[in-house]
């Protein structure tokens, strides 16, 4: 008897543990500052805080927390504090839709930041459009603003901006025969599709194209196949941990003459540089100025904005912000700037109109100017080529 009771208790405890740990912590509220008067302005943030895109979502959350705190310390927006409601979509598109629906219908948010991934950002649209709430996506896929919606804005440099910038550089280096290795979904697919559509303009030929899946542990077969075609260089579309594996595999089979590799903003992650180690030496990729703030131009407004953010973020979290934190900085400030321009009474649709009216806003990712046909506003001016040397990224210009 006592034994079966004991067993039952154990089972109960285990079930409770399972429920407690697997049910995501919904709505980790980021309280508005008490000093400001009036009802808080609520902004939703649907981020991938767990799952395969957690590396993108977590820095975004940290950036938003730091910035909302500062905004509220400085008196909030028109006397009202800002409150950001975070929802974790667990890198799952269905959950990002549910989260957006909840934020719009139950929490009455005036705008939504997110998602972290291209797939998640696109999926949320089915709630954003009928709900008539503006969305500022943190994903870099071109489709986010190519498949235009009046309600959707995007802060990262989309691949349609990154790819020509990268290809121009490849052309200048005399690369004619290019191979692509790309992740089979989302970011990788978008990147390789855009690349294939544009290479002709730069006199570059794609001679091999290989794919891999998230979670693959070895890309030697793909690289062996690419190597057999003897390309001038390989362009890699991989934002996750697999990027480091690819470079290490390349170094292993290449021996004294590994293939030259180029990448994309998704590679601007310290974990990638650390994980790839020596294999990353000489790796070249395009990303925003935030990686090395001096590339904004010392003393410029952008430099001051970025270094201020870097200092606040570093002080709070003990490490510097990455580009994903920067995209979130852009998103929260674009929304807050729009709110500042609005009267006391407004609807989410008014917020959308004001976001679209953003012009010449100097931020971390670049200078944002939206228009009724361009909801991203980034240009090649906002990008820099970086090279990895001695285990750290440096502006390519400086190194050469």
């Amino acid at each position, binding site marked *: 008897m006592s034994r079966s009771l004991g067993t039952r208790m154990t089972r109960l405890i*285990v079930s409770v543990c399972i429920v407690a740990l697997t049910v995501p912590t919904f709505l980790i509220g980021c309280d508005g500052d008490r000093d400001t008067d009036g009802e808080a302005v609520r902004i939703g943030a649907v981020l991938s805080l767990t799952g395969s895109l957690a590396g993108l979502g977590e820095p975004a959350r940290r950036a938003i927390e730091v910035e909302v705190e500062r905004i509220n310390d400085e008196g909030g927006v028109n006397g009202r504090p800002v409150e950001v409601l975070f929802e974790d979509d667990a890198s799952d598109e269905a959950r990002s839709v549910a989260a957006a629906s909840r934020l719009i219908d139950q929490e009455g948010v005036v705008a939504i930041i997110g998602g972290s991934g291209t797939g998640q950002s696109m999926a949320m649209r089915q709630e954003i459009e009928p709900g008539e709430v503006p969305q500022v996506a943190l994903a870099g896929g071109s489709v986010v603003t190519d498949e235009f919606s009046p309600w959707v804005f995007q802060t990262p440099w989309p691949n349609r901006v990154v790819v020509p910038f990268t290809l121009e550089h490849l052309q200048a280096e005399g690369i004619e025969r290019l191979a692509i290795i790309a992740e089979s979904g989302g970011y990788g697919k978008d990147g390789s599709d855009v690349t294939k559509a544009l290479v002709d303009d730069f006199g570059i030929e794609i001679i091999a194209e290989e794919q*891999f899946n998230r979670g693959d542990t070895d890309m030697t077969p793909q690289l062996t196949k690419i190597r057999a075609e003897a390309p001038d260089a390989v362009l890699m579309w991989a934002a996750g941990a697999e990027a480091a594996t690819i470079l290490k595999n390349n170094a292993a089979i290449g021996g004294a003459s590994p293939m030259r590799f180029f990448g994309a903003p998704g590679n601007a992650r310290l974990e990638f540089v650390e994980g790839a*180690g020596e294999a990353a030496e000489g790796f070249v990729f395009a990303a925003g100025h935030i990686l090395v703030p001096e590339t904004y131009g010392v003393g410029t407004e952008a430099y001051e904005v970025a270094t201020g953010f870097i200092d606040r973020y570093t002080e709070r979290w003990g490490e510097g912000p990455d580009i994903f934190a920067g995209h979130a900085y852009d998103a929260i400030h674009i929304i807050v700037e729009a709110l500042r321009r609005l009267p006391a009474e407004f609807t989410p649709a008014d917020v959308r109109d004001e976001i679209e009216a953003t012009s010449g806003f100097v931020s971390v990712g670049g200078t944002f100017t939206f228009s009724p046909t361009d909801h991203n506003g980034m240009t090649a001016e906002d990008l820099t080529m970086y090279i990895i040397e001695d285990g750290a990224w440096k502006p390519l210009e400086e190194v050469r």
Partner: protein
Amino acid sequence: MGGVELLQFALAGLKNGAIYALVALGFTLVYAATGAINFAQGEFYMLGGMLSVWAYAGLGLPLPVAGLVGVALTAVVGGVFEFLAVRPRKDGDLLAIIIITVGGSMVLSSAARHLFGPLEKALPAFSGTGTVSIFGAVLEIQSLWILGLTTLAVLALWYLYNRTSLGRAMRACAVNRDAARLVGIDPRKIVTVSFVLAAALGALAGLAVTPLTQTAFDVGPSVGIKGFAAAILGGLGNPIAAVAGGIVLGMLESLSIAFISSTYKDAIALVVLLGVLFWRPQGIFGASRREKV
């Protein structure tokens, strides 16, 4: 395609196959003891890497000690998991146990995320980042470690199964639980031992691979699925078949990339798996099971 490239594809297949084999061995051990599939097996692979990184980078232990700590801790987690979550289900209902392991895998990966954060972690190679050349094709020295550790694990398992009384008890239990109980074997103990061993094997795979791929809290499920497929392909319940299944699966993937397309490599492996199951439901190397009435 030249001979050197072909050899390169084969070596890559062998390396991946060895990883799948270690994970598949874990599936097979638990299956032999309980008749159920342990879907938390992939998480043991994840924990092996994560806990070793924690012991190495967090505690500052030397790499070999950190690796041992990682594998040992994961084995303990496997035992505790069995004791707390699987054992209370006394009737041994297979479906219930399978669901419990699915839940357990979520708990383990969530716990790892909360403890170690969402980002990937690196571990240095066991003995340098160099390569060896085999008739022109190259293999990382770390891959030799993977192959060596897999071989060692298989030999140790063979010894355990055939030369020790615990192993004989495990085999007896796999053949007939009730009969084993009649001759004085406690099947519950065998199930716990199986989980501990399965966790240790998964952890060993995770530890050996981390220097090549890094690790993160979410690497478990995809490797778990591959290991499961390898175990099914070879034939569940038989360690040698699990290893063979792993190698065959690794080779299939590698050769699909070589001759067909990397886009469909997983689909091709899956189609072959289904084909094999239609032809031999017990797996390529599994003994056919006859129901005696």
